[in-house]
Each structure stands twice: as C-alpha cells, then as structure tokens.
C-alpha cells in the first residue's frame, strides 16, 4: 500500500499552566481531529489521553505556575495524528523506580495517583517523552489512522 506521509495539516495551541484549560485544549484538538476524519470510536481515547498529558504538564512539568506555558502541537499526515505536549520543565520527568500497574494500584498497592501515563499508553498507539528536549518536557502521543477513511480536506 502506498501511504502518503506528507504533512497535511498542523495546528498549535499555547495555554497557561492552570487546571481547567486542558478542557479547552481538548475541545480544540477534538475539533481539529474531527475535521480530518478521526475515527469517532477513538475520540474518547484522544480526549482522555490529551487531558491526562496536559494535566501532567501543568501539575508536574510547570508545577502549576500559571504564567508558564504549555504548548500543544497537532499534526496530521493521513497515516497518523501526532500530538506533542511541551511544558517548560521546572520539574523534569523522571520515571518511578518501581512503577505499579493500574491493577496493583486499584488493589491498594501504592498510591492511586500516577496512573496517567499508563492510561495514556493504553489509549494511544505510541506515547512517551522525547529525550533531550532543552525546552522542558515534551510528551508525544500518536494515533494511527484508519486508512480506509478519507480526510475531509
């Protein structure tokens, strides 16, 4: 199959590090994804994982310092939707030494906090922090497209 991976569209959103703004960003990105034929059955996955990633950026990366910005870049190239969430990295991401699974956490082992990245991993096709980003933490998540669908553009 010949897949055209040329970038079709991109959109950038920047917002203050304050809880609540992730909802507005979620609605903006959902609108962008919807316009490009994002599979409706996966929209909830997109909404949930984007909110989790933005909350992480606000709470952890930028430590809820309102004047620090979170930048979100959405890119669509027929093959996939890619979303990058960039914070200013007051607190660089460091993975826990002993990450408990969601099942373990629900069973009472460890705190109930800290499930965001695992939830995102379940809901996306690819996810993770980009390495060596000097601007702060940059979290990338990807949703593969259903190639039978055609974009509205």
């Amino acid at each position, binding site marked *: 199959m010949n897949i055209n991976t040329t970038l079709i*569209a991109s*959109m950038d*959103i*920047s917002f*203050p590090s304050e809880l609540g703004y992730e909802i*507005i960003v979620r609605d*903006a990105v959902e*609108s962008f994804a919807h316009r490009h034929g994002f599979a409706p059955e996966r929209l909830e996955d997109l909404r949930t994982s984007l909110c989790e990633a933005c909350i992480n950026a606000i709470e952890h990366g930028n430590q809820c310092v309102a*004047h620090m910005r979170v930048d979100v870049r959405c890119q669509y190239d027929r093959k996939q939707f890619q979303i990058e969430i960039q914070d200013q990295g007051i607190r660089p991401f460091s993975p826990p030494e002993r990450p408990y699974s969601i099942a373990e956490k629900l069973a009472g082992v460890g705190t109930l906090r800290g499930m965001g990245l695992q939830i995102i991993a379940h809901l996306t096709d690819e996810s993770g922090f980009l390495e060596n980003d000097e601007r702060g933490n940059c979290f990338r998540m990807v949703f593969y497209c259903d190639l039978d669908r055609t974009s509205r553009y």
Partner: protein
Amino acid sequence: MSNDTSQNGPLEKVIELRLPSKLGYERVAMDTASSLAKRMGFQDDRIDSLKTAVSEAVTNAIEHGNQHDSAMKVVVLLTARDDELIVSVADQGRKPLSQNCTTKIPHLEEIMEQPDKGGWGIWLIRELMDEVEFTTAPSGGNQVRMVIHLER
C-alpha cells in the same frame, strides 16, 4: 480557572491558537472560543453570537488577509477576564483591509447583485460583539479585536 494575581497585577489568561489558512479551520476556532466561553459562564445565545463572529473573523483572515495561502497562519488569541472575553484574530496581511471595508454598512440591494452575496462579515461582527476594533497586527497583518462582556 482562578483569578491569580502577580506582582504586576492580574495575570492575563491567554490561549493562543495558530491555524493554517484553509477554509474549515474557522470551525476549530469557533469550537475553542465556545468551550472557553461556556466555562466562563456565558449564556447560550451569547456563545452563538461569539461563534458567528469568530467564524466570520477567521474566514476573513483566511480568504482575504492570507489569500487562501495555507502556509500562512491565522493567529487567534483568547483572553479570559473576570467580566469579558477578548478575541483577537490576526492574519499575515498579504492583502491589507481598507478602512472603507471595516466601516461600510452593507446594502441588501448591492449585495444581492454580487455573485457571491458576500460582504456581511464585518457588519455582522460589529452587530454581535460589544466592542470591535480593526488594527494592524504586530506581524504587520490585519487584526480584529473583539470583546464580549459577561453579564452575570
């Protein structure tokens, strides 16, 4: 969304949206503005007015200011304040807006004679928003600043 203050006064809560100049993206701006306005407590009819005004402003920026060049960006700034929402829409100014364009009141007979029946956008924006101002953007393009007041 609290009302934090810094040493220099209240912090401006600004969302910046950068969109390609392609028709259809005005919808993304509408949905984003609508989401923010809803959370600020605007009534549904005011949100409808806001959406129409944002749509017209972004469509103008895409069609006229940026002449449908999809490589050019339309920048939408949404500033939430306690009692108002400020929306600024800027293009890259391939085609500057004439003063006449921003003040002219459309006449139905004249518009009906035009093939596209267009020309209502700026008039609509002025009718729907509480404050409207046309200026030049820092980038040199056209900029429209629209304010809608929050009545509680």
